[in-house]
């Protein structure tokens, strides 16, 4: 049975990960764009630098993702003009949630991870569903490979359990280079089993000094 609205969405695949540290944040995503069983291109970024200490990675339907990124980047520019400063990561987190919920009845098919430094310079990661429900965590994975990656991050990041009371600080005690190595490892593993993840990995590291970008080759099959 084909329904009238079936054609409006497609899943272009891919995986996004973010890890928050004491004074850094790592945001990473693969660069494969797929449709069905085909690869459209091996070199397409899912990451958008929204503010100097705020980076968004999204996976899902690329048309919606690009529109969402454009929308948020425009709003951030407006904020700059009105407040004479860039948006903080927690502020952008709320804006993203509101933007997603605004289209609650015709959602952006985008699964987002927002990463950056908060106003105190500590790493923060915000994870979302498609309609804007979000929480601040120490790490997250979204996209087609998320189910493969999340359990490994839970195991390796030595972050305190979110179920503990009183609530403990979620950022990982790992160092920046250890976190980057972990990200490379989880993507290599996800690439093995998820057909939509692979080709190249784009890693963005945000810390006090600024933003740094790195590209790693992944399996192309």
């Amino acid at each position, binding site marked *: 049975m084909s329904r009238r609205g079936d*054609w*409006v969405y497609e899943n*272009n695949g891919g995986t996004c990960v973010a890890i928050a540290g004491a004074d850094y944040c790592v945001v990473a995503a693969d660069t494969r764009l797929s449709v069905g069983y*085909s690869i*459209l291109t091996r070199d*397409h970024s899912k990451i958008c630098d929204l503010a100097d200490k705020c980076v968004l990675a999204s996976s899902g339907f690329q*048309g*919606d993702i690009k529109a969402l990124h454009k929308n948020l980047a425009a709003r951030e520019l407006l904020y700059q003009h009105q407040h004479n400063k860039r948006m903080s990561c927690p502020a952008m987190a709320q804006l993203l949630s509101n933007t997603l919920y605004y289209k609650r*009845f015709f959602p952006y098919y985008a699964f987002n991870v927002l990463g950056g430094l908060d106003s105190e310079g500590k790493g923060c990661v915000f994870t979302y569903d498609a309609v804007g429900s979000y929480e601040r965590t120490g790490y997250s994975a979204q996209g087609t490979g998320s189910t493969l990656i999340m359990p490994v991050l839970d195991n390796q990041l030595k972050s305190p359990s979110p179920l503990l009371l009183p609530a403990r600080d979620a950022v990982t005690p790992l160092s920046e280079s250890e976190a980057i190595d972990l990200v490379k490892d989880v993507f290599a593993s996800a690439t093995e089993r998820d057909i939509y993840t692979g080709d190249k990995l784009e890693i963005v590291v945000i810390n006090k000094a600024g933003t740094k970008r790195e590209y790693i080759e992944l399996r192309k099959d």
Partner: protein
Amino acid sequence: MDGFSKSIGGGGPNVPAGSHPAGGSQAAAGGGATQRTQYPYVTGTSVIALKYKDGVIMACDTGASYGSTLRYKSVERIKAVGKHSIIGASGEYSDFQEILRYLDELTLSDHMWDDGNSLGPKEIHSYLTRVMYNRRNKFDPLWNSLVIGGVKKGPKGDEKYLGMVNMIGTHFEENHVATGFGNHLAIPILRAEWHEDMTFEEAVKLVEKCLLVLLYRDRSSINKFQIAKITTEGSTIYPPYSLKTYWGFTHFENPAQGAVGSW
């Protein structure tokens, strides 16, 4: 409506039962906005394109089908846009004509600014992406996959550009693109054999190799092709021509030879 097109047209598009091809609109659940969706009727098949040394080369056949009927055999599915770009489309042909009208308006306004600047392929691609995405948001799509290619002078010299956008707004830039069946049949060949700075002759040979595979394997393609190129000198759309095909395989001669049965 459905019965009419099926009996007279002899195999028009198979519109699913319970739908209205013309003027079918319903009030949506919230907001009162009318929801309309479409099915493609007259469609073009694959378009392929690749970057080469002097610019971009694009090719497709000149057929347009009405369901399983090959209705039009001399249709130009690649057109020049402004001074720096060419656009090719697969999918609903009338929507392509609509897109060309949008682009006419766009290039006219651009010309009227008279500011010495002209829209390049990147700008056209960006514009069309927004048009396609916004139509998709209104549930009233332009049922096409578009290929935009061109060359324009940029800060680093002459910059070649090749991109694709589909009917729901998925878009990307690449060294070689193909729509429809081309995605499955031509892209593997292009990925294996494309390289940077091909000459025009090499590029045409590669394109013809892809077109031949599509001719053999895509039932909606026809043996009449047009190649177009865009360079800093401008765009050229070559007159249509045919490729030589070979059907003399022994297995084609008596296909039922090995088949057991009474019919």
